[in-house]
């Protein structure tokens, strides 16, 4: 994918050579290469490919497949649809997913720090936006009162 940011050991960088191709429609003829498929399509074709979930998909359905999945993407059809945050949180904290978790869709600079807190570690920034500019959105604030996927202890246990 183009316009991709990835966190590697806590440092964010722009990835120029990401091998993954996002297949949006389940009806499409599959191209060659490393694919990120919609859930239904992926279930027919699980080996070697990655999966993306829409906000209506249940993350729990991936539980048996986690050991073989190379990457999971969560789609934001609109940046104002916040279900992806809970999906990411659950994948990381409840289902124990440790592989790459990618935000795709309406992924914009001003939400990146929230996505990062919820456990995303790669971000396919919407293609009409500058990835370089979006990098500035990853840092967010220095204070988190509550807890998150990357900071399991609330502030009152960190004081």
């Amino acid at each position, binding site marked *: 994918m183009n316009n991709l940011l990835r966190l590697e050991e806590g440092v964010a960088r722009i990835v120029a050579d990401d091998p993954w191709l996002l297949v949006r429609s389940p009806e499409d003829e599959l191209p060659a290469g490393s694919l990120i498929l919609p859930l239904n399509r992926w279930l027919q074709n699980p080996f070697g490919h990655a999966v993306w979930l829409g906000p209506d998909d249940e993350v729990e359905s991936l539980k048996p497949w986690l050991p073989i999945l190379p990457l999971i993407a969560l789609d934001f059809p609109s940046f*104002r649809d*916040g279900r992806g*945050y809970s999906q990411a949180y659950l994948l990381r904290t409840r289902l124990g997913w440790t592989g790459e978790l990618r935000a795709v869709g309406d992924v914009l600079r001003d939400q990146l720090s929230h996505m990062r807190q919820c456990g995303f570690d790669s971000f396919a920034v919407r293609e009409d936006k500058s990835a370089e500019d979006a990098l500035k959105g990853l840092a967010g*604030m220095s204070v988190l*009162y*509550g*807890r998150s996927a990357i900071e399991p202890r*609330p502030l*009152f246990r960190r004081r």
Partner: protein
Amino acid sequence: MYQYDDYDRALVFERVAQFRDQVERFMAGELSEEEFLPLRLQNGLYLQKHAYMLRVAIPYGTLSATQLRTLASIARDYDRGYGHFTTRQNMQFNWIELAQVPDILERLAEVEMHAIQTSGNCVRNITTEAFAGVAADELLDPRPLAEILRQWSTINPEFLYLPRKFKIAICSAEQDRAAIMMHDIGLYLYRDDDGQMLLRVIVGGGLGRTPILGLQIREGLPWQHLLSYVEAVLRVYNRYGRRDNKYKARIKILVKALGIETFAKEVEEEWQHLMDGPAQLTEAEYERVASAFVPPDYRSLPDVDLAFGTRMADNPAFARWVSRNVQPHKVAGYTSVVLSTKPGIASPPGDVTDAQMTAVAEWSERFGFGEIRIAHEQNIVLPDVPKADLYALWCLANEQGLGCANIGLLTDIIACPGGDFCALANAKSIPITHAIQARFEDLDYLHDLGDISLNISGCMNACGHHHIGNIGILGVDKNGSEWYQITLGGSQGKNSALGKVIGPSFSAAEVPEVIERIVHTFVSYRESEELFVDTLQRIGLVPFKEQVYPKVLEESA
């Protein structure tokens, strides 16, 4: 009151810097209106009919004198010399320039205030009643847990893009003055026989176009589980709440669709993963926050003040004000005073000028401990006034137009800003308010009528809480003109009820006459000192309808 520590301070200043950058990018065209919208809403900024409106949070309705002076300075320097208290412990400024908002927010941050999450589809300002910590009927002070919840919900990354706004209120008194049945989550804090602090959790209440009282999903929840339980409710809502239709997106619709048992089961299931985890509150954290809410250094005062008694006997107007505007206090010799922002046509409900704010700040220091509260009825409370000072305060309040003796009376109208300001409104609220206040100017008559709440909302978003007014007025749009629908029988508190529509709506000109007929019906059926709500309960809607409709129809025919 709560004082910021280094974390709180860092957060509000970083937030100002972040929003300053977002405003600049929007003004430079780098952010679209659509992209900017939720960012500005989560910083309290609305675009209204004429200008931007900024909504500032007043957590648990508490302000220091310094904070109130700062609000006055903002009204003076950035607005048109006044601000508006809302029904949810906020102050709104109506005439704001976008480019100046970061400077305003910075001025607020300097006095430990902010506008974070006062709007948007996120957890809003946590509210308590205005008399928290001082009410004579209080079981426990709800503010420490409210503050803990405020912090936890502030920029909580998972819950910033919920299906819809999310309002939480906490109450812990005999009378529910925080309207917990009308909130997305209502929390009632009490102690069991062993002295354990417990929570009753109510979900799915709300006004708006589908008014509904909340339902209990949990009784006897130990307070340590407050955050994990609220997190469980929010996660279930964030995942399954409707997003296809903004009018069906509040949690109340989800609760209704699933049924309370199924919803409660989902929450309990989610909570099983969270309970006893790191979100479990500690005694130390409770103590840390509670220490900010220690009672002030009250003097030992006699419960009876002879000079006060003499004033009451000599001055009926003062006595009348005391009977309506002064509340009992848990410390002997002290009272809580409600300053009415509803003097009638002089100004709209909840509006206060910078001069009034400055004066109130001074009184709070002179007659109290420099603390001011904002009640959800849009009035100002001075929580710790010695009885001996009431007369002096009353005289000063009158000079500033804040001494109207109408708390809880028909003219203590709760109203949203309405069509004069709000882009959502179907109809104006303020002219209707003034027309009713003008019709009922006679204070003796109003006092005879006793407690009657009258709430006006300019549209079904119900910011004026019309459903829970004994008399509710809702602005509706009929073919582009403004009409008003009347409900009767709403009430707030422990006996919360939603009003019922009495019939077809009225034009603005008809409304004062209709209210007069309703009041007249009450008076003719009233038994001795009966309250309006009790008479209504006893005789039902029919006698009111009979009085209201035939004659109005004849006249307009």
